[in-house]
């Protein structure tokens, strides 16, 4: 079988909230096809929501502190001043470097940032390719190093369309009354044409590469939905109050048309690729629409990013990918690990993302290496062109992503450094590294006494539990701003709640209660504060008002439901939780509280369904697991809700860290602890059972199998364990006890219990000999196939059972137990401290005469 073929398509800022109504009216047939024949879901973004940082995280699987792209621009260490981020800013391997080094034919088009184009086992067209920087008629050379290999430069230059080449045929579908626009006064048509031609340029390059080259992997990035949205989302229906009626009429179709245009381009790509190609479509963040649009943006660097929504899109179809299913919990850091896993390549342990295992119809073992950076040799001798950098910088200024740098080179350098440090602090703050964030923010706060830095510093203090310091800073910021700032008051209120100064907390909320909340986040903070202060009715009233302005905000609807729930108005509460779920299906808390409301309304079956979804979306919700168990005892069937935990065998350090934090909570939610003695039959499991019994452990046995010459002291087994596959609940009866479960039965242990497994190890050939002897069949041919079978079984247990989050294990060697029972008894006592085992009694079980002679004889055999 040949290599798998994958095309990764990026639509910057594409958002399900705009897409869904268009899907319902059948206006996005290509995307519809992708969704119906594959998986789709939200893709959570990262903080700060700045596209070059995000697309680099997508391409590397790493957070910005590791990949090094810390904003739109960066200090120019060589020439002084400031320059746009470039290929050279990235200090780690991207997916295309990794795949190239693995001999995959790899093409990349337009990825941000990817200029200058870097050497690949394929063709790279950089993100400076599509921009038209000269008026029509003038020569329009491509910047140097736009294309690798350079021999293709001329060809790709010819595939570009200048905005002024576009005709009415291209423009009218977006702006039907374009002929009424006075272009001398209204520059929006100009901006529109520029964005449209840039989209076409990327598409021309991509389609040429798809058709004319042999490739295994392609990554194509379209930035146009983001640019269309920044320019025209304010004219998208429903009409905003601040928008003039005539402007609304002129530009109201642009956003929907932009999505339809992208869908047609997607359709072309789907036509050009076959069913053996995997297509993955993603966006780095969403874009606020409807009532969540801001009437104006704050005056600060990269302010347009305030329009970015926290969830982008994810859709994928291809061989081995599930069909017509939703994906939950995906993060844009997960894209590269998912692609590597799909392509049977190891993941870097230094990656921050995880593979999205649930998108695949079949599971396979994960492979890891320490870092792809140890393997991939990047050509870092990339020459950057100063003139091109200056043009790109101009474009970023026009888009509002960076402020116009100071004429003084040194000043511009320092300002750019400050922005990047600030962004790095935001990365730390959003990835549970508040201490590192504080270190940077304290220094920055000295340099720039601004609200944006002060606010993050106060939040960092609050995260570290330094509430008094955070409150003091909020107050200083409030005084300096000379006007009440909703966000500050809301934050201060929640800090006061944390230190039980409820009166002060409540006072902070007072000025906000009758005002329109500036942002849904502020409303959420105020409402949560009132809920914490047990003022449920007031919170309900506040949220009812806030929802007039932000009716689609799932968090606010959820909190409103919570205020009803806490007042035991379960019917009202369940209505709100359902609304919240309709707005945002991936909302484990809403599913859980919906389940709780239904439980108290005695609608147990519906409650169980909701608990199951809550547990699927967040397997660490211990209360959901407890309730499911409770409903199960009432006779209601459950599904295997812990699948995600069973699938999980991550060795990625970040995952382990996360799981360690979650593990405690998860384990608390389980049904209890059982002690399992396991191993292949005749590996010493009965001997171990006898030791533990002698040590004082309670044994789960029905004593049906009596002692015999092979096990003179008895087997200490339970007959029912042999039927564990049919009746897994039997294990619930063994809570707190030691039970013998041979290796073949281990996969049937109920996942909602915690287990400590003592796994007996003995050479497989010895085990088989012993089994033959026991069956008095020693003259038969030695069963090689059985050895292979056992070895495979042991390998599977090693990777699939012992690695599970709810399993602790101790491996005990059969011969060590016979030769050094005191040491093994000590190890057992240390592994099971809660059983207070008597080590002397345990060691005393081993009778050298009994075991040693048998052991020797068997070895001879």
């Amino acid at each position, binding site marked *: 079988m040949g290599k798998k073929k994958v095309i990764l398509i990026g639509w910057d800022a594409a958002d399900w909230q705009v897409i869904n109504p268009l899907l319902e009216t059948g*206006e996005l*047939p*290509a995307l519809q096809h992708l969704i119906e024949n594959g998986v789709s879901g939200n893709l959570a973004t990262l903080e700060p929501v700045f596209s070059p940082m995000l697309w680099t995280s997508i391409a590397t699987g790493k957070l910005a502190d590791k990949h090094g792209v810390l904003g739109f621009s960066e200090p120019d260490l060589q020439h002084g001043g400031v320059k746009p981020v470039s290929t050279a800013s990235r200090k780690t391997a991207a997916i295309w470097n990794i795949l190239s080094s693995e001999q995959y034919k790899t093409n990349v088009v337009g990825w941000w940032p990817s200029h200058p184009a870097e050497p690949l086992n394929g063709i790279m067209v950089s993100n400076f390719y599509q921009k038209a920087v000269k008026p029509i008629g003038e020569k329009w050379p491509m910047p140097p190093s736009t294309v690798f290999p350079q021999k293709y430069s001329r060809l790709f230059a010819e*595939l570009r*369309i200048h905005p002024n080449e*576009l*005709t*009415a*045929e*291209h423009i*009218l*579908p977006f702006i*039907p*009354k*374009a*002929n009424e626009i006075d272009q001398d006064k209204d520059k929006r048509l100009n901006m529109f044409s520029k964005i*449209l031609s840039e989209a*076409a340029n990327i*598409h*021309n*390059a*991509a*389609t*040429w590469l798809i*058709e004319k080259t042999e490739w295994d992997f392609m990554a194509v990035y379209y930035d146009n939905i983001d640019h269309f949205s920044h320019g025209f989302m304010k004219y998208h229906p429903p009409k905003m109050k601040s928008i003039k009626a005539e402007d609304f009429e002129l530009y109201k179709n642009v956003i929907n*048309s932009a999505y*339809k*245009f992208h869908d*047609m*381009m997607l*359709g*072309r790509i789907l*036509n*050009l690729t076959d069913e053996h190609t995997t297509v993955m479509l993603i966006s780095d963040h969403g874009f606020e629409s409807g009532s969540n649009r801001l009437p104006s943006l704050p005056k600060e660097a990269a302010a347009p990013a305030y329009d970015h929504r926290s969830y982008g899109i994810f859709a994928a179809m291809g061989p081995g990918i599930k069909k017509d299913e939703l994906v939950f919990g995906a993060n844009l850091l997960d894209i590269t690990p998912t692609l590597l896993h799909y392509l049977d390549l190891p993941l870097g342990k230094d990656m921050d993302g995880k593979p999205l295992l649930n998108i695949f119809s079949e599971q396979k073992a994960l492979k890891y290496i320490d870092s792809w950076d140890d393997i991939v040799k990047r050509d870092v001798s990339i020459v950057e062109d100063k003139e091109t950098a200056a043009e790109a910088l101009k474009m970023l200024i026009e888009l509002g992503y960076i402020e116009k740098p100071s004429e003084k080179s040194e000043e511009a350098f320092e300002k750019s450094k400050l922005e990047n440090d600030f962004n790095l602090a935001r990365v730390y703050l959003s990835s549970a590294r508040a201490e590192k964030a504080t270190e940077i923010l304290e220094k920055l706060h000295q340099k720039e006494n601004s609200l944006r830095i002060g606010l993050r510093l106060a939040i960092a203090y609050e995260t570290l539990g330094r509430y008094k310091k955070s409150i003091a800073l909020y107050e200083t910021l409030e005084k300096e701003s000379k006007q009440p700032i909703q966000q500050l008051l809301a934050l201060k209120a929640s800090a006061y709640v944390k230190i039980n100064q409820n009166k002060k907390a409540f006072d902070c909320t007072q000025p906000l209660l009758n005002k329109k909340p500036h942002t849904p986040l502020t409303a959420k903070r105020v409402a949560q504060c009132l809920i914490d202060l047990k003022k449920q009715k007031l919170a309900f009233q506040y949220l009812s008002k806030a929802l007039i302005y932000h009716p689609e905000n799932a968090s606010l609807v959820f909190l409103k439901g919570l205020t009803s729930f806490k007042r035991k108005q379960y019917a009202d509460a369940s209505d709100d939780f359902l609304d919240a779920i309709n707005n945002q299906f991936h909302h484990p808390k809403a599913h859980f509280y919906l389940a709780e409301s239904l439980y108290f309304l005695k609608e147990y079956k519906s409650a169980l369904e909701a608990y199951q979804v809550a547990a699927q979306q967040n397997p660490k919700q211990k209360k959901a697991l407890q309730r499911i168990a409770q409903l199960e005892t009432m006779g209601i069937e459950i599904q295997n809700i812990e699948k995600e935990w069973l699938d999980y065998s991550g060795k990625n350090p970040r995952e382990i860290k996360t799981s360690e934090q979650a593990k405690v909570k998860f384990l608390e939610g389980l049904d209890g602890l059982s002690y399992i003695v396991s191993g292949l039959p005749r590996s010493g499991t009965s001997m171990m059972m006898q030791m533990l019994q002698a040590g004082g452990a309670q044994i789960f046995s029905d004593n049906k199998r009596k002692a015999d010459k092979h096990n003179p002291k008895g087997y200490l087994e339970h007959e029912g364990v042999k039927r564990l596959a049919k009746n897994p609940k039997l294990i619930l009866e063994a809570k707190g006890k030691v039970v013998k479960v041979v290796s073949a039965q281990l996969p049937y242990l109920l996942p909602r219990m915690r287990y400590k497994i003592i796994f007996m190890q003995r050479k497989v050939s010895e085990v088989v000999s012993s089994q033959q002897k026991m069956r008095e069949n020693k003259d038969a041919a030695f069963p090689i196939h059985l050895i292979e079978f056992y070895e495979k079984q042991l390998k599977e247990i090693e990777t699939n059972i012992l690695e599970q989050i709810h399993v602790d294990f101790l491996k005990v060697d059969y011969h060590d137990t016979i030769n050094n029972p005191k040491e093994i008894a000590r190890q057992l006592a240390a592994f099971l401290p809660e059983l207070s085992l008597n080590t002397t009694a345990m060691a005393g079980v081993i009778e050298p005469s009994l075991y040693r002679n048998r052991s020797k004889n068997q070895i001879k055999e």
Partner: protein
Amino acid sequence: MKKAQSEKNFGWRKNNSEQHQYTIKEFNNQVFLVNALGEPFPVSNQGSLALLTLGEQGLQAWRKAKKLNPNS
């Protein structure tokens, strides 16, 4: 410039041909994209959104049509 009529006239239609490989042909001073079934699609020198979304092939056809009829 004609005023808006219906969306269909503006190229908001999916390329309904499953035969997505086109060749560019000239006939009687007019450029056509011809699919694998031999079906011809006339290419206007004004271009269209559908041509843009065809990518490189659409661009080549449009450029050829403009060259053939620069002033029409």
